[in-house]
């Protein structure tokens, strides 16, 4: 009798948890929609009161254009954070953390111009060099991720220390590659990954959506996704159940590294310059914040890829809204911190 009662209580509790999870996700979507709506309203007011636009042509057309650019601005800015945060979500789901993503971005970003501005381009042609400039940095980034993973699994370093080593050393490596100098370039084919506009939407937004969808599928429907959650939930139990714990852990760091590599390439493509000093600076904190706001607890065992995506969007929209109504950047930073705190507090309430 007692057991059945206990199960009943448990079921009820888990139902409550699920319901709460839904409320929270919907809550985030609703807040997002409200913010988007508010911004649309604001843009509409600006456009409709601007007499030159009204005189010269169609108001709705101007409005659609304004809206389009506003959405594009936000999605463009958030794309790299989302890409990195997806990798971070995998790592955090196993109970780890990856501080090295910014440094890995810098390395990948330095490598690409070195390849397509170097002798390879002259000897084998620009097209080949461009392909190499995208593939090689991502592979190298993955190798740095592998190094992180091996430190965590083979040498038993704590994840925060292992990735701290790459955080410190990695940016140094990126800077040493060009002795700290910026590399300026103009390479439309390579820069298509950031400046291209298929169907009017920036390429990086497509990349972001592909990354999110693939990661969402992997997490939801593959055995690898289940392994990741099992490792984060209870490592010993997972090991006893036959989960290849070390391989899974190594894999998530490789994924995180490779995704950081992609993000690093996008950043240099946007800027037409590679800056090892600034590329990916502090992005690990943005990514961790997005993951936490999205409902993935730092203790591991749970992961919500869509939550991370929404979390990053939410942070970005709040920042954009604050800046657009004239709040100074520094103050937006403080407000942002408050929002993260509240979002995580709500999440902790759920698990407690």
């Amino acid at each position: 009798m007692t057991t059945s009662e206990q199960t009943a209580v448990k079921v009820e509790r888990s139902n409550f948890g699920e319901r709460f999870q839904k409320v929270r996700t919907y809550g985030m979507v609703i807040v997002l929609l409200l913010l988007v709506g508010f911004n649309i309203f604001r843009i509409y007011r600006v456009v409709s009161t601007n007499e030159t636009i009204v005189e010269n042509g169609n108001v709705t057309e101007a409005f659609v254009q304004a809206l389009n650019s506003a959405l594009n601005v936000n999605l463009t800015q958030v794309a790299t954070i989302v890409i990195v945060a997806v990798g971070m979500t995998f790592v955090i789901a196993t109970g780890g953390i990856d501080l090295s993503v910014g440094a890995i971005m810098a390395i990948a970003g330095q490598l690409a111009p070195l390849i397509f501005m170097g002798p390879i381009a002259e000897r084998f042609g620009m097209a080949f060099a461009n392909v190499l400039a995208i593939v090689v940095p991502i592979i190298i980034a993955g190798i740095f991720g592998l190094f992180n993973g091996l430190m965590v699994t083979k040498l038993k370093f704590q994840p925060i220390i292992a990735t701290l080593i790459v955080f410190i050393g990695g940016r140094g490596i990126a800077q040493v590659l060009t002795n700290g100098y910026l590399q300026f370039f103009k390479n439309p084919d390579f820069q298509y990954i950031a400046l291209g506009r298929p169907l009017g939407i920036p390429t990086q937004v497509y990349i972001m959506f592909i990354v999110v969808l693939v990661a969402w599928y992997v997490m939801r429907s593959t055995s690898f996704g289940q392994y990741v959650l099992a490792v984060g939930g209870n490592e010993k139990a997972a090991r006893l159940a036959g989960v290849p714990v070390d391989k899974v852990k190594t894999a998530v760091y490789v994924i995180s590294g490779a995704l950081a590599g992609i993000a690093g390439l996008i950043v240099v493509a946007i800027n037409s310059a590679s800056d090892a000093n600034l590329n990916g600076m502090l992005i690990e904190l943005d990514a961790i914040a997005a993951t936490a706001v999205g409902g993935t607890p730092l203790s591991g065992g749970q992961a919500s890829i869509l939550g991370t995506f929404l979390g990053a969007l939410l942070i970005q929209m709040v920042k954009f809204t604050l800046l657009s109504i004239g709040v100074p950047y520094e103050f937006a930073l403080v407000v942002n911190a408050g929002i993260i705190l509240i979002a995580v507090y709500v999440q902790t309430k759920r698990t407690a």
Partner: protein
Amino acid sequence: MATIANNANQDTGTRKFQLSNLMRQQGALVFIIFIGVFVLASIIFGENFYSAYNIKTMLIYNSMLAFISLGMTFVIITGGIDLSVSSVAVLASMLAAWFSRFGLLPAIFVTIFFTTLVGFFNGIVIARWNIQPFIATLVTFMAARGLSLIMPKVFAIYMPVVLPGVPIELWANNVLDFSIIIDRTKNMQDILLDFGGIPIPIILMIAVYVIGEVALQFSRFGQRTLAIGGNEEASRLMGLPVRRVKVIVYSLSGALAGLSGVILAARSGVALPTEAVGWELQAIAAVVVGGTLLTGGRGSVISTLMGVLLLGLIFNILNFVNVGGFSLTVYWQSVIRGIFLFIVVLLQAPWSKRTG
């Protein structure tokens, strides 16, 4: 029954003994490496290196990291982490620079009061709201950095409105758009003076570390800190005031970051919101080099000081390296830092595995 209990007692007793032994060895190991590296560097680089000027400069710079690392050691022993220290130190340097017009002591105490409040806030969020330390202090990290970016503007524009009757020159005099300059007519920079031949920051550093070591090893607070890090649930069940200890530990970290910020401002003569980037990670590195495990429950304060000094020494030496006209750029230095940290953690791994 009794014998079993006795045996168990003895068992934990010897274990404890071995542990503390190992800990001492760890600190001693770092100390020996430190001395070795120092002697080697003195032989290679000569007077430039072991001149009083170089050593003083190095120690004053590292005293700032040492204060932060001491707070970090206590936080890490409870099983937490404090990412906010660098931002709090910058906020403190802003406050100290602004309050420097009222003299040295007000600047120090007001600044430390405020940063202690920031640490207190961290502690409340972590202990009361049950938010993970990593996230809670990350939030403070962002907010404090934002506040220190705002402060020069706010002080220049709004303070005359808040406190009318005070001449506007007093508010705006030392404030640029992005930084706050120390009032050199007051005695703010006295904190860098020598006292008995030794600069005050160094004396302070030694003093707080001695107090910290004694507090950790011999006071009730220290024992509670260790117990909470070892097993929080058990400590709670035993009736230890877990929340209060955590709040105190984070407040302490905030206070020490404040002290570090005061020295930062005094040293530069101007408080810039872009200073002290990455100090929290350097402090974590120093704590780890000192042999304190990030999982909490054990650690040593003096070993952390050794860690700070060893890292500081290594980076100081890198400035002197000049092989055939090829001097190490800052970029190479950060590569070497990474490799060095890797080696130290690697050397520690067997030790930590045995005990943990």
